[in-house]
């Protein structure tokens, strides 16, 4: 064990001072823990013999946010057992005793986490089986409701440091799965057909003398038989979409990419069939099937990426709690019942405990509290709400239990309005057809014209060769290398970006990043963490020291949920100062401060002094007794690591940086000067942010936006390219093109370089495909093409393109 002063928590790796940390003996070795929550988790894991988790995990766990000390299932979870919810979350199985449910997991970070969750749940009574999908982070659990229940399952997952929600499968999710499977089936058939047809084509390429006409005939017809399902089944969506595009040409005045592809496929299959019947030339079925397989494979990857993106409405459902506590009869007694939020009616009275998310828009009655609206408005400090004030769904209640009269639910809430603004921004976002895709489109059209022209030419010179040349031009030119050039490079760079911590949701991201001219940064939650930190204590009275003042303050703040209280307690725990024992109970005067005997702790008005003049502060709190001021505590917002790396990369590339936020202008200004950002705006609503981006875009700027809150969602959606910071709101993620999963912003600087490299490799790939075609097409047009050489050339160029893209795996 380390004997240094600082020790790392065994579970979450938080640094603790030697004396303050908890020690626990697990299997003969003593370990340090930062808090009782981490200790409880480690004890649970140890008691089940799952210690191997700590050796195998590849990322450290985060500090548990939920109090795990008492072993009882909290009330907020018990509501999930309500019979009115069971039809939404439970599905029957073949065995009448057993039911199936799907849980959405959070905080799963590595394979060891998956393993731990599976092992821990399997050890619970009544759990029959569990399967966790690592990619979608969903767990399918089959259990016996007689022995255990949904609340118990969720609680068990929380007990080992993860979070879970019951997942209600929606119609759109089911359809997405069907679409995915359908396309994968088509890709599979095309790939099998391709491999087999190539095998049958081999003898005709090598031209061994043994190949007598009757065997050649047999091989040709077998190839034809195997190409048939590739054309009729696998390529069906291509033909359908092409037909659709042609039919509506009169209205839309444009043809999509599928038209030339369908034309090439149809023509070459018909000519191939004719030459098989007439036995007068190569059928090129191998190239045909290969082309279909690669086109469909590229589309499959595109579909996967597209389905990862959430719609605004779906994210809204994730953002708000599913359950609320409703007073059965508010005017008569205080009995409450947990009901699903969807069953709430207007003018119902509901109760929200401190630390919970408010599920509806409503007015406060009979008590006041402080509410954190930072996700909704970007305002970093909690706002005091008094009786009669409106509170918004999606904000956190921080201080007191409150009662709310329901004014709006679901889509009609303030957050629902932001979600629909997001959907609107997403739908009007110009579809970014990448330059390289446009190129490919022009190339295919050129190819068809060239094929028709040369076949027309041969019709006059030697009509017997017209068909052969037509097909030779269409197929011998290298559609494979061309169709592979972009998807392979993008797939490889997406993998590398994911390793660095950026998940790419929309495929255009890498190309767009190279074009960025302006970067818009959100303040709260993006460059700062929206979490205050005690930086200094000023105005200290003679008879008090730094430590004693902090000891008094932390004793008074103990058990408070206000962010400044947390910051004081954190500082006290970090410095390992023992709080004093107060002789009088602490009285909380909402919006002002705390009082215990003659000690008073609160804002400057409450104490009766002038506030400390200092800019850019998160806030200040003053401690006084009957003799006057004892000390003033000064807090600063904590900044996110890696901001400087990102900003220096931006100045290198000549990108203009803007800082805009819903926070007040003075604070924003202070942070802007801190980071030397010239353009800054404060007190911005989500609509203002949306308009700010539109104005920039109207000036012809190409905007990258980075944000985290619900209020950033429309901003992220309307920017040309956008990144949501990982721990942020699901709604923000829905609007973004990429999601940063790391705590620091530093990887983004590297992502810029990766994007440049990706672009240069795509260009190189296209250049290669172009050169190959410049040589191959004239040869095919002259009718000199030799299928044997064409086959090798095509395979080699495809291989070259793939290997070139592979270089992006390392940066």
């Amino acid at each position: 064990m380390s004997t240094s002063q600082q020790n790392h928590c065994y579970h979450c790796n938080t640094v603790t001072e030697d004396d303050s940390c908890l020690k626990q003996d697990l299997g003969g070795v003593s370990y340090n823990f930062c808090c009782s929550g981490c200790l409880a988790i480690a004890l649970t894991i140890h008691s089940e013999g799952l210690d191997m988790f700590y050796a195998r995990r590849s990322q450290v766990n985060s500090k548990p946010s939920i109090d795990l000390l008492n072993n009882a299932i909290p009330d907020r979870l018990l509501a999930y057992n309500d019979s009115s919810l069971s039809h939404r979350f439970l599905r029957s199985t073949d065995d009448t005793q057993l039911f199936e449910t799907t849980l959405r997991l959070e905080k799963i970070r590595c394979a060891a986490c998956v393993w731990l969750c599976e092992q821990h749940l399997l050890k619970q009574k009544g759990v029959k089986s569990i399967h966790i999908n690592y990619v979608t982070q969903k767990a399918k659990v089959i259990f016996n409701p007689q022995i255990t229940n949904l609340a118990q399952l969720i609680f068990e997952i929380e007990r080992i440091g993860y979070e879970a929600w019951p997942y209600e499968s929606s119609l759109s999710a089911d359809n997405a799965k069907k679409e995915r499977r359908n396309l994968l089936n088509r890709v599979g058939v095309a790939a099998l057909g391709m491999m087999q047809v190539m095998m049958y084509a081999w003898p005709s390429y090598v031209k061994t003398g043994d190949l007598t006409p009757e065997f050649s005939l047999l091989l040709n017809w077998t190839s034809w038989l195997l190409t048939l399902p590739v054309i009729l089944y696998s390529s069906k969506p291509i033909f359908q979409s092409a037909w659709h595009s042609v039919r509506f040409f009169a209205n839309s005045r444009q043809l999509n990419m599928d038209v030339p592809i369908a034309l090439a496929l149809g023509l070459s299959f018909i000519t191939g069939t004719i030459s098989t019947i007439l036995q007068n030339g190569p059928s090129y079925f191998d190239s045909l099937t290969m082309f279909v397989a690669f086109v469909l494979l590229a589309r499959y990857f595109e579909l996967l990426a597209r389905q990862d993106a959430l719609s605004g409405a779906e994210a809204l459902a994730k953002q708000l709690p599913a359950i609320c506590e409703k007073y059965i009869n508010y005017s008569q007694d205080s009995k409450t019942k947990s009901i699903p939020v969807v069953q709430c009616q207007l003018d119902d009275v509901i109760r929200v405990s401190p630390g919970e998310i408010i599920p509806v828009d409503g007015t406060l009655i009979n008590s006041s509290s402080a509410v954190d609206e930072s996700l909704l408005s970007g305002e970093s400090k909690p706002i005091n709400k008094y009786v009669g004030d409106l509170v918004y769904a999606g904000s956190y209640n921080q201080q007191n239990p409150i009662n709310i009269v329901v004014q709006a639910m679901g889509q009609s809430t303030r957050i629902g309005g932001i979600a629909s603004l997001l959907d609107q921004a997403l739908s009007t976002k110009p579809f970014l057809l990448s330059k390289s895709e446009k190129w490919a489109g022009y190339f295919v059209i050129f190819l068809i014209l060239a094929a028709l022209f040369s076949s027309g030419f041969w019709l006059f010179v030697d009509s017997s060769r017209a068909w052969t040349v037509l097909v030779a031009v269409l197929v011998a030119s290298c559609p494979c290398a061309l169709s592979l050039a972009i998807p392979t490079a993008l797939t490889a760079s997406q993998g590398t970006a994911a390793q660095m911590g950026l998940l790419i949701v929309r495929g255009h991201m890498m190309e767009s990043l190279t074009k960025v001219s302006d970067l818009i940064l959100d303040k709260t939650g993006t460059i700062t963490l929206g979490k205050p930190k005690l930086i200094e204590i000023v105005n200290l009275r003679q008879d008090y020291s730094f430590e004693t003042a902090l000891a008094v303050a932390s004793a008074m703040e103990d058990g408070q949920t206000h962010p400044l209280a947390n910051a004081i307690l954190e500082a006290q725990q970090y410095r390992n100062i023992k709080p004093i024992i107060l002789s009088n109970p602490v009285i909380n005067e909402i919006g002002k401060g705390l009082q215990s005997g003659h000690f008073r702790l609160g804002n400057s008005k409450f104490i009766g002094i002038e506030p400390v003049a200092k800019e850019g502060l998160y806030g200040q709190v003053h401690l006084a007794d009957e003799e006057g001021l004892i000390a003033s505590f000064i807090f600063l917002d904590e900044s996110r690591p890696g901001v400087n790396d990102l900003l220096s990369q931006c100045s290198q590339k000549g990108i203009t940086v803007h800082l805009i936020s819903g926070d007040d202008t003075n604070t924003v200004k202070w942070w802007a000067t801190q980071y030397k950002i010239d353009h800054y705006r404060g007190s911005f609503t989500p609509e203002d942010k949306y308009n700010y981006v539109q104005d920039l875009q109207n000036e012809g700027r190409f905007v990258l936006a980075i944000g985290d809150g619900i209020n950033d969602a429309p901003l992220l959606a309307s920017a040309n390219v956008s990144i949501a910071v990982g721990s942020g709101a699901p709604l923000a993620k829905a609007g973004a093109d990429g999601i940063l999963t790391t705590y620091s912003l530093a990887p983004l600087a590297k992502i810029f370089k990766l994007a440049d490299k990706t672009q240069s490799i795509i260009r190189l790939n296209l250049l290669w495909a172009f050169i190959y075609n410049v040589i191959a097409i004239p040869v095919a047009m002259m009718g000199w093409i030799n299928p044997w050489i064409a086959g090798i050339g095509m395979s080699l160029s495809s291989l070259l393109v793939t290997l070139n893209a592979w270089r992006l795996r390392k940066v």
Partner: protein
Amino acid sequence: MESLYILIPLSLLLIIFIAWILHWAIKNDQFEDLKGPGDAILMDDDSPKHQ
């Protein structure tokens, strides 16, 4: 070379069989999670049970 008259129909049967397996695998969620199971096999605790 006459063996081709048997081998080629056989290969066709084989490919139909493989296509059916593929279809079965897709239907049974085998392609839903391509990352987890690969790691899961490394997590299996195959050290001898002590106690």
